Structures are given as C-alpha cells and as structure tokens.
C-alpha cells in the first residue's frame, strides 16, 4: 500500500501541472461550446460492456463516470454501443453505421492511446504507467519497486510466478531480466467477452497461482483497491526505462475529420481536468505528470 500511496502523491503534483497547461488551452479556445451540442441529441459512446475498471454496461467504470459528466455538461442524453474492446472494436463501433439510418453507431471512444492509429484523438486526459502488483508476503514482503524484485536472491526469484499478458511491456521486461521462465502467460485478448485482464489476474491471485502480476496502471490500481487487503496486494509502478515504454497517455477517440466534435471534447477536457482527476483518483489510477 505504501507504494500506491507514493503514486498518489506523485499524482497530486501531476495534477497541478496538467491544470496549468490546460488552463492555457482553455483560454486559446474561442469557439462557443454550443455548436456541437445543438446538432446532436445524445452523447453516443462506443464502449466495452465488460471491461472494468474502464467501462461496463452497468456504468461502473471510470470511463462511464467521465462520460456521465461529459453528457451532463453538454446537456446530452448518454447512449452506449457496446462491443468487446478487442480485435475489430473500432471497425464495429466508431466506424460502423446503423441500418437503415446510415448514422454512425456511436461518436466517441472514451479511452484510446494518444496518439492512435485508428482514430483521431483529443488532448490526453490521463497519463499512467504499468505497475507490478504483488502479494506482500514472504520474499516479496520486503520489496517496494520492480527493481527490488530483481535484487531478490536467485533462490527466491526461482519460485516466483508472475502473471503477464502477451503484447504488453511486461513480456519485454521479464525477457530482459531472464524471468520469462517464471511467467504465467495470458493471451493479449480473451475470446470470452466476460473474461478481462482484471478478472484473469484477480482469479489467479485468489487461487494462489501467481505471486505477482504486471498490469496497465488503471487495472493494477483498481485490483489493489478491491483485493489489496484480503490478498495482501501492493502496487509498485514502473518508472521510465531506456528501452521499454511503460507509460502511456490516454485520450478520447473520434473519427478522423470530425474537427468540431473533437474541439468540443477538447474544450470540455481542458475545463474539467480536476473533475476528471477526481474520478480517476477514485479508481486508484496511478497517475503521472
């Protein structure tokens, strides 16, 4: 828990910096906010129906909460189009049209990397990093960072089981440090829309199949907040690394070319940084400047 708290402290500093920058952005924006609101009756969000902590169909994810705040401020109803956030997500949501109206199924994805190949992006509203989540017992009770784990005696490392996903920097990190043999490997995406990164790791911690896992920060923070006490879980974020990128900025994704809509969202983000951060903090997202 100590590491997680350190992360939150860092976050507070980050917030100040972001607020300052976005304040400048808000001043620069001169178009009235009405334009986009007037020609749409709803905030139509493309989302995964089961991918906590980001989103679910019960509105329990932080992206749901940000969407609610956004819809409220724009005076729009909130509507969702759901599809698993896996292969074909953008093609089947943001870029897909409804029959027979020919209208796009939804107009914004609340979280995409910044920048992103498949959508245009707003300004980022979140910057987080991958984190090591570990059961603070036995040999691991003494560690406070991923680097500490590497310093453990070889005999301790030889018995570890570290859960990680293909196509994440976790795989690069364990390969570089000769720990791939200790890895419990999960596919980058599950074929079952009910199985998420969170549910996979949560189940394996509960069953004692893993001692640690390497996860994208928001998932790591949420897991520790949910299961930290009973499973003795702690979180240690990865810092900057010369060859492996652990930190990513997240923005909203819109269709290429819809610049007015993007500007509307950018203005809202600029004016509501602190509201967004309050939401993210509530989900224990480890935030970076």
């Amino acid at each position, binding site marked *: 828990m100590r590491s997680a708290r350190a992360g939150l402290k860092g976050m507070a500093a980050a917030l100040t910096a972001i607020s300052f920058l976005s304040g400048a952005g808000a001043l620069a924006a001169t178009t009235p906010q009405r334009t986009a609101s007037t020609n749409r009756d709803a905030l139509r969000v493309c989302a995964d129906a089961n991918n906590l902590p980001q989103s679910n169909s019960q509105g329990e994810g932080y992206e749901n909460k940000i969407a609610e705040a956004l819809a409220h401020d724009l005076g729009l109803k909130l509507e969702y189009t759901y599809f698993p956030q896996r292969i074909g997500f953008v093609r089947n949501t943001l870029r897909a049209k409804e029959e027979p109206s020919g209208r796009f199924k939804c107009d914004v994805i609340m979280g995409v990397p910044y920048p992103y190949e498949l959508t245009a992006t707003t300004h980022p509203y979140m910057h987080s990093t991958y984190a090591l989540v570990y059961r603070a017992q036995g040999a691991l009770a003494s560690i406070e960072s991923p680097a500490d784990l590497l310093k453990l005696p070889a005999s301790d490392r030889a018995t570890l089981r570290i859960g990680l996903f*293909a196509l994440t*920097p976790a795989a690069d990190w364990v390969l570089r440090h000769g720990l*791939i043999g200790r890895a419990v490997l999960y596919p980058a*995406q599950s*074929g079952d829309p009910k199985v998420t990164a969170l549910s996979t790791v949560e189940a394996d911690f509960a069953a004692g199949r893993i001692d640690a896992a390497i996860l*994208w920060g928001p998932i790591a923070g949420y897991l520790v907040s949910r299961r930290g006490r009973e499973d003795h879980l702690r979180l240690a974020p990865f810092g900057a690394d010369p060859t492996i990128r652990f930190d990513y900025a997240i923005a909203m994704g819109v269709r290429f070319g819809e610049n007015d809509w993007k500007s509307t969202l950018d203005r809202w983000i600029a004016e509501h940084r602190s509201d967004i951060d309050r939401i993210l903090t509530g989900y224990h997202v480890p935030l970076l400047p």
Partner: protein
Amino acid sequence: MRNKHRAIFRTVVLAAAAAAAAAAFGDADLDQAMSSPSNWASQAGDYANHRHSTLNQINEGNVDKLQLAWSMSTGVLRGHEGSPLVIGDTLYMHSPFPNNVYAINLKDQTFKWKYEPRQDEAVVPVMCCDTVNRGLAYGDGKIFLQQADTTLVALDAQTGKVVWSVKNGNPKIGETNTNAPHVFKNLVITGISGGEFGVRGRLTAYDLKTGRVVWKAWSTGPDEDMLIDPKKTLTWTNGRMRPVGKDSSLKTWQGDQWKLGGGTTWGWYAYDPKLNLVYYGSGNPGTWNPHQRPGDNKWSMTIFARDLDTGMAKWVFQMTPHDQWDYDGINEMVLADIKMDGKTVPALVHFDRNGFGYTLNRDTGALLVAQKYDPAVNWATKVDMKTGRPQVDPKHAPGVTAEDVDVKGICPAALGSKDEQPSSYDPSTGYLLVPTNHVCMTYEPFKVEYTAGQPYVGATLTMFPGPNENGDMGNFIAWDPAQGKIVWSDPERFSVWSGALTTDGGVTFYGTLEGYLKAVSTKDGHLLWKAKLPSGIIGNVFTYEYGGKQYLGVYSGIGGWAGIGMAAGLTDPTAGLGAVGGYKDLAHFTNLGGTLFVFTLPQA
C-alpha cells in the same frame, strides 16, 4: 427426381461395398463420387488439391459463348470463400456465418433440404477477418460442415438430418473455424483458427461414422502433444533429412510461450492415398510481438506430413523461422508428380505467403526448389537450399535494423504473395495456375496498440502496391514447379483472391475482387472470356456436368481479409495514395453480395 436420386445412391452403395472389399484408399462413397468428373465431390475436386477437371465440353474454342444457366442467393452478405459440392443430381451450397447449408436439386434448382444452425452471435467478434467459411466436405453418405463456433456437424446427405455433432474447440478462448473439413479415408480432418487470440494450433482427425477423436496433433509444445517422434520425424538439415531430436518445439520458445504459440491450421490439406500421408501447413506464432518471442518458434510456419492413421509426423519443414512478417504457412499443399531432371518426382508444391514457391519430395520431405513467385519479394534474398532457411535481408526485417526506424517497402505485405485462395495444377502443361498478391508494406514501430484495455508500443503495417507502373496489386501466374519459374503472368488491378480451376478444355478460370469471372488460356494466359458479377469474387471456381452439359460456377460475395479486413487495415487517411487509394478503389467496382452463379454453353 427422388427415385433417380435413390437409384444413384444405390449404385454408390454397391460400388462402396466393392471398393471396401478391394484395398480401400479413401472413403468408398467419396472415392466413387470423385471417380466421375461430373461431380465436384470435394473442395479441390480430389485429394491432391489439383482443382483440375477432365471435363472439356467448355474449351478454348467456345468459352466465349458462356452464358448464365442459373443463380441462387445464399441470403448472406459477407465474404464467400470456398465452393459448393456436386454429387449426382444435388448441389450442396454453404454460406458464411451463420453457415447455412442448402441441398439443391440440379434438375430444377429447388431446395431438397436446408440446414440452418443456431450459433452464438458472440463468436463473430472473435473472428479476425470476416465471417468466412471455406465450404463443406462429403463422404460416407454425409455432408460435413465445420461451423464458425467450432461445431463439426455430420449431416445425412439425403435428408440434411444431423448424424453426429462434436465441438472441435472453444470460442471462449478465441478458437473459431473458417477452414473446410477434409474427408480422407475413414477420417474427417479439421483445423482451428484464432492466432490473434494466442490459440494453440492443431489438426484433429475424427471418425467419419461417429465423430470420435482418432488423433489430435498440436503445432507447438511437447513432442507427445505434437505427435512427433524425436528419432523418426525428419526435417531438412544441411542438405539431407535428419531426425528433429528431442523437444524440437520447446527449445525454440522462451518459458511457457509455446502455450500461446499459434501455429493455427486453417488452410487446404492434401492426402496421398499411396503414401497414406496427410499434408498441411501451420500459421504464425501467436500474438507475440516478434522481439517478445526469441527463437525459431517451432513448429509454426511449417509444412507437416503425417501418417493418416496415427497422426505421427513423418517429416516437417519450417518455411519462416521466427516469423516477423505474419506470413502464415497455411496455404494449400498441391501433390503432383512432376518431371525433374528426367525423373518423375512425387512432389508437394506450396506457394507460401512468404513469397517463395516450394517444391519438396512429398515422400521424403527433401527440399527440391524454393524460388520467388513474385519478383518483388525482398524480405529474403533467397532460400538457402542446404538449410532451407530464407536468407533474411536485414533491410526488410523489423527489429533487425535499429528499433526506432520504419522498415519501408517490405515485400510481400502481411497478407503474403498469396493467401488461402488455392492454385490449380494442370497435368497436361505441368503448370500451376496461381492467384497472387502484389502488395508491399511499411512496418512502423512506435505506434501504440490498445487491446482489451492495455496499451503497448506495437508496430503498424501500411500496405501499398508492389513496384510496377500501373499500381496493380495482383497477378495471375502460371508456374513451372520443376524449374521454380514464372511461365506467364497476367497483371490484375487488385489482389487475386479467388481459387483457380483448370480443365481439359485448355481453359483456366479465376475470379477478381472487382467481380470479374475470367477464362484464360492455360498455355499462355491470354484472356478468352470474362463476365462481371455483382460482387467481388473470393470464392473458388468449380465445374460439374449434369444432363450431358458442363457447368461452371463460383460464389460472388466480397469480404474476407481482402474485402473488410484489408479495408479496415488501410484506412489511415493521412497515408498517401498507395494501397489505401488502391483498395479504397474497390468501392467503385463492387458491393457486398452473396450469390452462387452457374454458367454453361448455349444449346447447340
């Protein structure tokens, strides 16, 4: 109608009994059906993947008179791969998801029966590249359907009633099926798709009569899982065949990565009844980024030759060790006896996605020929004939050059110099007639991917036409498998994504993405006839004879990787003209569709 059909079946049954009494090479029903060129009893028309018909009523002299005989909608507007089957007086038509099956009376084109499976819609998001299905199989009086949700169904060919049904996989872990099942002897053989979900590939053989699993052979992992005998399974090593040795797969992966190792098996398999071997290829090594999976990643990207009865591997040949380009090795295995240096060689010919046309001795597994079948291929300079390894050009190998630069102009693109669309072997010329892609790609690192809520610096592929003056993205070629040389080449505006057919009429048929069904001279490739169909063609051309007339058919229904997958992968509006422009152009030519078209000559 009905009586006639019964009569045919009686004949078949009698013939079956006779065949069973003799040395049964294949399933008696199927052997009987294949023995008549009137039928199109398997997806390739035979076990050897020749896609050749001895029918010659339609020939070079009259093919330009072809006219529409009849057509039938499948009721589905998605990519239509594979082809129908014809046995006796019945045509069996399949559709993409939801994989309906229709038995059609050839006499009057009425439905004899329909089978419309109920499948969980949840399987659709798990299918990477459109909801295609590559068709049905026939044997033992049954029609076999391999559904998208991995259910393998045996239907009574006369009534459409389910005889048996088994689950071949689990969509909840990303396993789906797009391949056609293949009936070889007393087995129905099927593969698995889902490399994008880290599915571990395998080939599974089911008992034709009961659906019981007879053997299952994995592409990666421990020797016993792969049905590999470390001492007896051979591979091409320093110019000769040597045993693969212990743990030949495990040694080429880190930790447990082989469990998410890919090597899926969604292509066209072949069977040599004399050698009793089944041949097929495995796909790319799972979802791992290349630098996340050091090693050769065996036996992904591999040609397997297995004993049909036991599944034990006689030999293996890995084409693209440590694949960095997504060149799945699943394309069809064509078995042809070809003349090389005055001798007839029992050969296996394979046009790999990696751009090399391979000729191997299908009995021993020895490498005979490996040459580029598109001159643009540049990721490797050549295949070293001693080791069988491609000589990778570091200029075109992601991760070999500095990690922070784009790797530009890699040919072929990830979709390969050819994808699953099968070639045809013409015995009279000895040529293979091959639908190909002429598309290259730029590999850009440092683009962030986002999957199931976790970001990662992956690589993005941008595809564009291969080098030429007109921006053409495909060729239809004739290939000499003994020399490893292109005999002739017809340029095509788009990739040719339709299976070819050759006939004893001296004519070769194929379809194009714009929707043309074309007939060209097998000898020199000159165009003899073409017809524009409503939707692009990604199905395979087939032929049959009924009532003394030869018919020619193909599905019209664009989709698959070429139709939506590629379109989806090529939509970056900031990209220049190139492939984005090229494939976007498809929308000027065609629309979605789902119709079977059948042509014939006018009454003399």
